[in-house]
């Protein structure tokens, strides 16, 4: 036993034992739900072995299919407030490495890591090609197959990727071919570039897919270069639409996952959640909406495989706090609470409260509310900069609490006593909804709004006195 400085981590054998992160995802077993999405981090056996060694439980191999040629200059990003990659865009195609090399490395990875999930992502054209390639990845030892119906650039121009994902009938036919040919579990990966995710979701289920993963990247243009007038990434003076991913797309992914998980014919299909996952919290949120494995690409491209340390520690800490021992204990637990707007309680009332001791007087809440919301915050007249909430005007929209830069300074306090419950749906059923232009039953009736001319009385301070 040899210790070098810094390698002396205390082994905590008592606690973690109780928590079992392993998953059985549609028959694909893995030591944990943290998987790498099919993308550059899974381009080679070297990367996947390194990832498993770092703690990832599964990997979906970079999509295999007919050989491609890539362009040089492939990625762009949304550098929001210097986070460098708030959103990420790429114009890369599926694997450009020879199939033979990929298969050989796949077999080697399985030899070293028999208990980790290795899933082959595939994208080909004809039925014959699907049957051929499935046979080959099965022989290489893949634990499952993922069908890439998502790539929104390049491949779709050749009739594959999102071109399939956007045509439920075609998608269903291909899933049927694959199901017939495959002896290992099949995951159908969906494209978000569609109005109703349920359509391709249902087609996949009707084609008898074993599982679904989502989302692939979102069609996008992340920005325009102001010198060459071409979209990023610029290839010799031109660009094309890319696929958007990273933290910015998480809300889209969560919503689509929820739509599938609430559909009666789809909800029993195991879901692998993808899209903007970077922290333990993201993982938990996907699981709460029903995902039982998660896949990550952009966060790994930004920080490397090491981020799995944070994912694992955070997930375990959450599970300990809540008393869960497997992820199945809480998978889908938020689904009953996601409902249609018409079922929300119209009698529930919250109002903003400013903690004067914490307030630093930036007055962002004031201007946000006055210019952007409901004129429910007043500036102080005592020379301080601590604003006050005008309770009768506050509609409880949350805006001020969202812009406030101080942790827990503006809180939204419950005002109703919790005894009343009435929804738009109930109002409709009992024929009580406002239905004339100036109906007394409308929500904004009686809400105080300053007279328009009041607006002109506001003058910004002008020290120099020059107007």
């Amino acid at each position: 036993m040899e210790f070098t400085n810094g390698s002396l981590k205390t082994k905590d054998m008592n606690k973690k034992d109780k928590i079992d992160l392993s998953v059985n995802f549609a028959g694909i077993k893995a030591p944990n739900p943290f998987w790498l999405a099919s993308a550059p981090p899974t381009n080679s056996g070297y990367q996947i072995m390194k990832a498993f060694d770092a703690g990832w439980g599964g990997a979906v191999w970079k999509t295999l299919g007919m050989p491609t040629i890539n362009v040089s200059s492939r990625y762009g990003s949304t550098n929001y407030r210097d986070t460098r990659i708030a959103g990420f865009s790429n114009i890369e195609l599926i694997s450009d490495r020879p199939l033979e090399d990929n298969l050989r490395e796949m077999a080697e990875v399985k030899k070293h890591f028999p208990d980790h999930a290795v899933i082959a992502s595939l994208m080909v054209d004809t039925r014959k090609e699907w049957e051929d390639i499935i046979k080959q990845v099965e022989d290489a030892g893949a634990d499952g197959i993922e069908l890439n119906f998502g790539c929104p650039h390049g491949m779709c121009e050749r009739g594959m990727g999102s071109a399939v994902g956007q045509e439920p009938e075609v998608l269903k036919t291909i899933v049927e071919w694959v199901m017939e040919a495959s002896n290992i579990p099949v995951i159908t990966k969906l494209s978000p570039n569609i109005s109703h995710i349920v359509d391709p979701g249902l087609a996949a289920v009707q084609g008898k897919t074993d599982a679904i993963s989502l989302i692939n990247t979102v069609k996008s243009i992340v920005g325009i270069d102001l010198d060459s007038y071409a979209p990023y990434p610029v290839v010799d003076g031109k660009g094309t639409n890319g696929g958007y991913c990273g933290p910015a797309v998480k809300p889209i992914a969560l919503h689509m996952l929820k739509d599938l998980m609430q559909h009666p014919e789809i909800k029993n299909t195991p879901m692998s959640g993808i899209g903007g996952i970077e922290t333990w919290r993201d993982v938990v949120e996907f699981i709460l909406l029903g995902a039982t494995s998660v896949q990550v690409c952009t966060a790994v491209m930004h920080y490397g495989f090491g981020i799995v340390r944070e994912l694992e520690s955070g997930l375990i800490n959450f599970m300990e706090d809540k008393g869960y021992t497997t992820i199945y204990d809480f998978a889908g637990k938020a689904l009953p609470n996601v409902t249609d707007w018409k079922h929300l309680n119209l009698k529930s009332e919250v109002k903003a409260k400013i903690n004067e001791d914490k307030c630093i007087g930036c007055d962002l809440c004031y201007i946000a509310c006055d210019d952007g919301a409901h004129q429910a915050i007043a500036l102080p007249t005592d020379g301080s900069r601590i604003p006050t909430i005008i309770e009768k005007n506050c509609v409880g929209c949350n805006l001020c609490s969202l812009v406030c830069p101080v942790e827990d300074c503006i809180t939204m306090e419950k005002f109703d006593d919790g005894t009343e419950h009435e929804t738009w749906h109930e109002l409709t059923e009992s024929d009580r909804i406002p239905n004339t232009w100036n109906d007394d039953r409308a929500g904004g009736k009686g809400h105080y709004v300053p007279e328009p001319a009041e607006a002109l009385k506001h003058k910004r301070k002008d020290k120099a006195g020059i107007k």
Partner: protein
Amino acid sequence: MAEYKRPDNEQEFKENFKQKKPLMNDTQAHYESSRCLFCYDAPCMDACPTGIDVPLFIKQIQTGNTDGAAKTIYDSNWMGNACGTICPTGVLCEGACVYNHQDVAPLLIGRLQNYATMSVIESGKQLYYPGEDTGKKVAIIGAGPAGISCACELRTLGYTVDIYEAKSQPSGLTVHGVAPYKISNEEVMAEMDYLQNQLGYNIIYNHPISTKEELTKLETGYSAIFIGVGLGITAPLNMTGENLKGVHGAVEFIEELRMKHSEMKIAQRVVVIGGGNTAMDAASGSARLGAEEVTLAYRRGKESMGAYDFEYDLAVSAGVKGLFNASPLEIVGGESVEGVRFVKTELVNGKLTNIDGSEFTVPCDMVIKATGQAKQGSLLSLIDKLTLDEKTRIVVNADTNQTTNPMYFAGGDAINGGAEVVNGAYDGKLAANGIHQWITQN
């Protein structure tokens, strides 16, 4: 006039000894943690003597997993909270942060560390449990950072641990030596309680081990013994006047200061002799206690001082005056000290030489000798086959901290001759693993 007014009560004491690295609030921690780049193979982690996974714990703070952040810290360093505020971070983790290369302020790693650990100390959240009982017992001499860390680690490995401590409180110099503006006594003790509550080692206070018989008893009653006795009292200067009233050792002075706070007496004019960090602490402390004039006298030039620059700057900002190239000849006075007689020095061919005829006296009412701590040689000489080096440091195997007497292990100031709390924390942990390995193999 002095920079500080003499503190008459605990409130005023706290003002004068205001915490240099106060606990961050949630907003501070949120903003600060958002700056961390999560560097690969991070240099900050490398620069930490205990190798804390700094980028991980900062990311955990950022994602709201503060308990997880605390665990990441304690997994590597049982003195995690104390270290966060008292480590010389500018020369350790923060000094290595990549932002320094761009002239951007480095991450406030120490304070973020403190934020995470304080949060679990306050909530009392149990992060560790004793390991399955091995049926074996280990004795530890000294409840300083090294001893406490060794005890914690041994408990997670399933050993019964008894710590024999000469004083009445744990943490060694963390509470008795470190300057009070770096950490409060309460904060040190809160971490000590937090650890002992979850891991359950025994501390036998007011129980110095000083005789051969006691050692023999330990040798027969325990499977292994860890020596974490640190260093001894301030070493003698062997100079005329050293025994006059008003002459103090720096370590003893600071210990008294930490225990008595505003009850502590300080003279009008103080001379501190020495150029190390302890000298800076003693000088700063004197000034903050309201001494009118504090002179810090060092034999060599300012650039040769052993103290960190920031420690000297801190002393100067408290009103301390530096006197360099002045070597003390004798302490003068009748019954009580009245001054220190110095001779000026210069470097001649790289050798420090006194300048003849340049003698002068600095009048004062108090002298603090900060000229190093004596070694624990007398105790160590009672242990058979224990090899000490030429500086009376215990010789150990660098991979296990095992001494030349196989049942004894050692760490902290007793093996490094005087370093930082963070080094003691690492040593104690290393030794515990060494002990485990040795016991398992025998």
